């Protein structure tokens, strides 16, 4: 037992995992999950915990599964869209099951503060048939992470811990619990369990389905799923995670209606029934997609009961919730604040830093493409996505990690010309290598610009796996014609010469790669490059 600590939700998860005896933390940076990994990393040497960023979320998840195979505990950290990348490993790890405790800590981003969608990871847990825990505050984040590791070993399955931005990135005081030591090495012996040949996988999948009754029982009796009563039964509430906080805020801490609060999945069926039976209508207040609402409503609804929520427009379908939205949706009083005293308040969108190498790279690419009229630059996930904004207006796509290269290739297949892809060094290591390999083998007529600033800049200058000469060798190793690999240091002073290089490679009717290499100004300031 320690003193109270001031922790982000992310840090509470991290320290809980350390206190619960993890031997490894795995992950790829992604807002709002990054600080989980970083908080473990900060104590990893002292604690003897393996902590190295992986090339992508799939690699991270598989490494964690390997650690589980060897009998030791670990957590994997990623943002919600990272789970799409890790989904193959994740789905199949439910079929293999786990040995040492494995918890996937995934941070969703309702409202898309720093993401390209607001997908809800509870669907993944449901899809994979594994338990999911969902904290409402920092103390729960701590306690649930520890419970999740225990639960993972008790049921022999990976467990999902779902966070959302407003908990991941909110601080409060947390009372830590006692520490337990790391587990000894205990390598799994049965050759069948983790070898998902159809013959074995059928057995394992049946075992997974047979575990469901136990998982449901655990949810029904979980201390995180609580049905509370109230004097007024005209209405009842079904809420998840931090939506409970907003409901309590709206009612000033005392809700006069029955409330079923969900923090553990699979959905507790009996508890849901008990709620429905005692009220005339159920309002489902959920942070995320209408997951509980869809399960409750089914296709035909419940005769004689009104079910309100995101599907009928009682609450907004998109964006994150907040206490004001919840109060207003329920017809509760909302206070009026002050009005702006300055007529027009201009927006202040994020921008590339002063002196950023990406700015010079984009200006040169734009200049090089000028003779061709329309600019077609497929781009990717990172700081350089800010190249979308005026005055650069330099990119035309950002879909998922690595999509710049594959989409550019597809456009080139269709006959578009010239086609340029712009991708950062870390995104290239994450998911750019395989599409470039594919393109080189076809000698696709396009140019890939790798913006090598030597760091994972957007998420806070984490270590990148492929930069400098290592990156050059990777690109050449994929089979690129060495005559069409050009390395430049983008700079206004040499713009004319560099624009000419880029233009020559764009004109070349085959695959070419420009590596625009200059260190990130943030990383230089922090001394990490």
């Amino acid at each position: 037992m320690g003193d109270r600590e001031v922790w982000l939700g992310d840090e509470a998860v991290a320290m809980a995992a350390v206190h619960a005896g993890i031997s490894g933390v795995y992950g790829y940076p992604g807002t709002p999950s990054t600080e989980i990994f970083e908080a473990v990393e900060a104590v990893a040497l002292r604690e003897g915990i393996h902590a190295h960023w992986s090339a992508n979320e799939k690699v991270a998840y598989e490494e964690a599964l390997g650690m589980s195979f060897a009998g030791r505990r670990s957590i994997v950290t990623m943002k919600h869209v990272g789970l799409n990348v890790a989904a193959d490993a994740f789905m199949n790890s439910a079929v293999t099951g786990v040995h040492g405790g494995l918890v996937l800590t995934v941070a969703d981003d309702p409202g898309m503060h720093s993401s390209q969608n607001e997908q809800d990871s509870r669907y993944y847990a449901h899809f994979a048939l594994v338990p999911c825990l969902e904290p409402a505050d920092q103390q729960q984040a701590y306690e649930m992470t520890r419970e999740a590791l225990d639960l993972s070993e008790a049921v022999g399955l990976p467990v999902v811990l779902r966070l959302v931005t407003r908990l991941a990135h909110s601080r409060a005081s947390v009372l830590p619990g006692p520490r337990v030591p790391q587990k000894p090495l205990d390598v799994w012996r049965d050759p069948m369990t983790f070898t998902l040949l159809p013959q074995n996988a059928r057995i394992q999948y049946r075992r997974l389905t047979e575990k469901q009754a136990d998982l449901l029982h655990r949810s029904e009796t979980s201390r995180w799923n609580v049905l509370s009563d109230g004097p007024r039964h005209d209405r009842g509430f079904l809420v998840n995670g931090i939506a409970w906080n907003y409901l309590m805020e709206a009612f000033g801490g005392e809700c006069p209606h029955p409330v079923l609060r969900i923090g553990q999945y699979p959905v507790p069926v009996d508890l849901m029934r008990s709620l429905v039976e005692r009220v005339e209508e159920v309002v489902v207040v959920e942070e995320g997609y209408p997951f509980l609402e869809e399960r409750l409503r089914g296709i035909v609804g419940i005769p004689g009961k009104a079910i309100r929520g995101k599907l009928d427009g009682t609450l907004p379908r998109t964006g994150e919730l907040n206490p004001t939205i919840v109060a207003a949706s329920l017809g509760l009083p909302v206070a009026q604040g002050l009005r702006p005293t300055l007529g027009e308040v201009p927006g202040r969108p994020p921008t590339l830093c002063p002196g950023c190498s990406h700015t010079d790279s984009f200006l040169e690419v734009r200049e090089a493409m000028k003779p061709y009229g329309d600019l077609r630059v497929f781009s990717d996930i990172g700081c350089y996505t800010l190249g979308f904004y005026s005055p650069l207006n330099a990119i035309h796509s950002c879909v998922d990690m690595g999509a710049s290269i594959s989409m550019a290739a597809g456009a080139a297949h269709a006959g578009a010309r010239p086609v340029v892809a712009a991708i950062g060094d870390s995104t290239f290591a994450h998911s750019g290598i395989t599409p470039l390999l594919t393109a080189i083998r076809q000698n696709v007529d396009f140019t890939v610009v790798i913006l090598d600033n030597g760091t994972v800049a957007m998420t806070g200058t984490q270590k990148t796996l492929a930069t400098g000469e290592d990156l050059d060798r990777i690109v050449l190793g994929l089979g690129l014609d060495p005559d069409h690999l050009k390395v430049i240091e983008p700079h206004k002073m040499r713009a004319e010469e560099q624009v000419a290089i880029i233009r020559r490679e764009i004109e070349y009717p085959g695959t070419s790669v420009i590596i625009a290499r200059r260190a990130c100004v943030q990383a230089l300031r922090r001394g990490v490059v």
Partner: protein
Amino acid sequence: MKTDIILSGVGGQGILTIAFVLDNAALSRGLHFKQAEVHGMSQRGGAVYSYLRIADRPIWSDLVPEGQGDMILSVEPLEVQRYLHYLSREGVVISNTAPHKNIPDYPEEAAVLSALLDLPRCVLVDAAAIAAAGRQPKAQNMAMVGAATPFLPFDLADYEPFVRRLFEAKGEALVQGNLAVLRMGWNVGRTVQQLLTQGVPTRQVNSFLLRVTPETVDPDRANEVAVALHGPGAEAFLQEAGGKMPLDAALARCR
């Protein structure tokens, strides 16, 4: 008791350092707090904010409900306008005077400050001048914390252990310098608070104090300021554009 604060500024201005100091002060007082912040994309020079809620009872939401905020503490004067709908009618704005002009359509600086003086309760803080007076040019955020503190459930002494933790690696002089900047900020905040309580308009109080060298601002002499603001020279003094002068000189100009 509850104090709901919106911290605002521009990515890179260090509002999280302010949050760190205030969070720990709340913890050491045994108060409940929740502090939601923004990381990632928006930190790149964009508008950033953080909600900090402090109370003597459990806090439900990490986010401040609209119209219920008690304070906007902003390290940039234009950014205040973005969050006024969170502020209750009794709420106070504590704002730095220095604009951060990283957008092409930044309004005229005088208009930005004048708009803040239209608010019922506002403390304008020349954080750069206070930090310079303490010979800690980087301690502008400490000046802001100091100015906000008379409106918070804290004393300056609450911050000392955390200021020490933040700066002790860089030497005792830096610790003492930051504490001095906190004190000068507090003097400004406390003086404005007393004058506003007495019904002196926001515009007059702040226009006067911005003309006074920070090291001479003294909350124990708030009454003298109130009296001087009724003096024959006050209106002309407040309207002229000019540099800072010691408190005595400013009082003399008004009388």
